[in-house]
């Protein structure tokens, strides 16, 4: 976990990129996050996060083919890089480790 700290939104976007395989572009990511967490984000926020992740080397991007929709503008597809995958694994393992240490029941209030 040294070196790469990622924020909550970054983690969410990174997971979304991973789960969308080769269909991950900003609007699709927005939709996935909306579906799974019911959080409505701003598409420009997704853009900013993606740029940051790419700079950190956690995702890589390439332009897709031309489409008739969206004014003929191409989409930028993002894929999870090796180190991006690594970061996600680390985050998950830290969480699981801590989670498993918890007793199965909480006894708050006793």
């Amino acid at each position, binding site marked *: 976990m040294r070196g790469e700290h990622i924020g909550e939104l970054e983690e969410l976007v990174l997971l979304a990129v991973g789960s969308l395989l080769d269909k991950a*572009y*900003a609007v699709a990511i927005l939709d996935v996050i909306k579906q799974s967490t019911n959080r409505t984000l701003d*598409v*420009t*926020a997704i853009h*900013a996060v993606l740029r940051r992740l790419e700079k950190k080397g956690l995702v890589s991007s390439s332009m897709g083919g031309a489409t008739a*929709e*969206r*004014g003929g*503008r191409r989409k930028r597809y993002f894929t999870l890089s090796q180190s991006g995958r690594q970061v996600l694994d680390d985050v998950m393992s830290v969480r699981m480790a801590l989670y498993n240490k918890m007793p199965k029941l909480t006894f708050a209030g006793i």
Partner: protein
Amino acid sequence: MSKHPPRWADRFLEWYCHPDLLEDIQGDLYEMYERKIALKRPLLANMLFIWYVFRSFRPGAIKKFQGNKNSITMTGNNFKIAFRVMLRDKFNTFLNLGGLAIGVACFILLGFFAKRELSFDRFHAKSDKIYRVWLKEVYAEDKIFFNSTTPIRFENLLEEHFGEVETAVQLLPQNYLVGRGDDRDNEVVTIVSPEFFEVFDFQLTKGNSSQPLTSPGAMVISESHAVKYFGSDDPIGRVIPVEIGDEIRDFNVTAVFEDIRTESSIQFNMAISNVIYPEIFSQGTMEAWFSIAPETYVLIGESSNISTVEAGMQEVVMGYLSEEVEEGVYNIGFQPLTDIHLNADIPAGIAPVGNRDYVYILGAIAILVLVIACVNYTTLSIGQSLKRSGEVGIRKVMGALKGSLVNQYLSESLLTALFALIVGVGASYLLLPIFNDLTQANISLQFETWHIGLYAGLIIIMGIASGIYPAFILSRLNVTAILRGSGQSKRNHFIRKGMVVFQFMITVFLITSTLIMNNQLRYIQGKDVGYNYSATVSVPLYPDPSASRFLERLKTAADKGELLKEKLSLYPEISNIGKGSHVFGTSGWARMAFTDDNDVFRRFRYLIVDASYFSTFDIKMKAGRGFEDGSSLDEKQSVIINQAAADYFGLKSPVGSKLPSREFGEHSIIGVTENFNFTSLHNEVEPLVISQDPMIIFSGVSDVGFGDSPVPKLVFRYEGSSLLGVREILDKEWETTFPGEELNFTFVEDDMQQQYAAENRMSRLVTVATILSIIIAALGLLGLTVLVINSKVKEIGIRKVVGASVFTIFWSLARSFSTQLIIGIALSIPITWWLMTDWLSDFAYRINIGVVTFIISAIISAVIALLVISFHTLRAALVNPVKSLRVE
């Protein structure tokens, strides 16, 4: 795409976005746009697109702009040159800076005044969720009782019946004697609900800050009152005795709150809890529907809407009252807290209500003066452009682009604006005490962070507004034309003259308005109101402490007043001593209402006097006679009415007849007075009934309302040489008659003035703005004359050589300004007339806007303009031509 997002936003995106990122960002935004279009929400789609374009404007997405570095160095250089230009021509810099600085100072002072008025009561965190309840009883067209105070039981009703209402609280200011023995003081003690401090953000600084007012013996006081009563001691737990009714109760100070700021409608220094109500009010009062006393405020929930409470409250109350009143008689409404200070449609509750129009007019004047200052700078800069054209020519030859020239001249105006702001803000802070003193505006310039934004904004707006036009004119000049030495285009002259005319127009408008306002105020303050109040003194009397019933209180106070009167009558300076329930200079004279024998509902104002009151104020009788001193018949049965009452009651020959209801006590009307203006001249004279024995009237009226306490006041004429003398005399005689009570006396003249405080303040504020704008305009005019003369030095020399007289030369220079001034004056007339007619319509008695006022203001402005022009022109005209022609 069938529909296209807003082109300008799209173009903006294309302009700033990094080319590598542009395509996919733009594509994504289009996609979001199309989704909304598919949902048939085109407006939302457009709004969102624009929003996203601006949201995308972040460091990561902005392209690298070429040439950034050069323009940064050039900016530094531009400011350096601008600074040198300012140093080189000190006179011009002084004029430019001075004008702008005065504009800034005026803008800040008036602007903060307007802002203070508009931000009343907004400092409470929940201010938008707090409402005040009003009550309007409508019995007939002219029988309406509209109050923003309510019955006591409203608090519980609102809390019990409505989930939307989080808390309802009441406040009721009462006048009590506070203290014990010789140290008693008349104080306003406000009775508030225990939850009061949860609704309003008045900070509790010491003591029990969560629930200070749960017990009936608890009291909270302000910091300044803590100092007043306990000095530097800890006030918590200390005792303050208050005389309520006829018993003295001890209250314990449980908490201290921060002094309430001036921009709050709710003001108090001492508060006790309303759990005490049952001990001081009867069961009947507590449950009355038609007795109004406290102001009631409700705090509604975050997501609630007041309209549901409003509709519901009506139903709840009608549930109780359906047998007593008809539908539509008893109306309840809610007014937002933030609306209280400036909404004159709803009657004032405990705090006075300001005038929203005045605030807007002053705000507009603040902006106008700033505009004049900017226009001033512009005209002067255009004038100077002739001087600077050589510089522009050389720069252009050296390869300067138009844009960089514009930048350079804008730097100059921005720099001037910066200095002007520093000077102007500094000056307004320094002059604030004088300004407050002069205008009673009571503003404070506490620094807040957002002021930085305001000041920065002012610099940019002033700098660009005043500099943009000259900058473009200068940069557009044709190189060859300049270097060959030909003059400016006709169009520039035209625009420059237009601006000068505009300036004259605003200034003359302000001058005329000031004249009209002052005339009106002088008129109402000097109008023959029908009585003589000069050098009369009014002293409130006190009832005997043991008297509890209303009439007993009036009686004991009058009796004690008689004792004081005997003592005072020994002084030769004091004459015409009388007593009356009300004195001139307030609007709170008693209101009475009754239903006459023909079933017509009638209202009148009522005054209780003794026989000498009429002679104190020299009130003239129109018919019949006044009260006779010592006549017991007059004391018991005689009534005097004013002419308005005679007309209103329809009494053809009032003297000898009776008031039109059998319910009144045995009486007969012995006289009719002229219509004297007993309230302020905002209102017409209302029907007035005067008697010595209040029982005659009280037995016949159905409604009674006292704006001011009817406990009698002693009034007398004082003819001593010094005003301090009257205090000495009263101090000497007071203590033996009213031991332990506080002596308060006022000159009726001061109280009369007080009625027009709002108008006086407005007039003073406008006068300040006028003087400042005259100075700005004068500075501008001075600058322009200097410029014109400098360019005509040789022409003047030659004219003199050929034989022109000083006057001819003076006139040839002054002529163009005169034309502009005349046009300015002419244009200002309709604006002034329109705005001032509106202002005057607030007064029932008003002056006509005469032609004379306009002539006077035209003369004033012409004289000022001529003085300013001649200052320099005459000097130029008197110069020896040898000197001016030798210049080369």
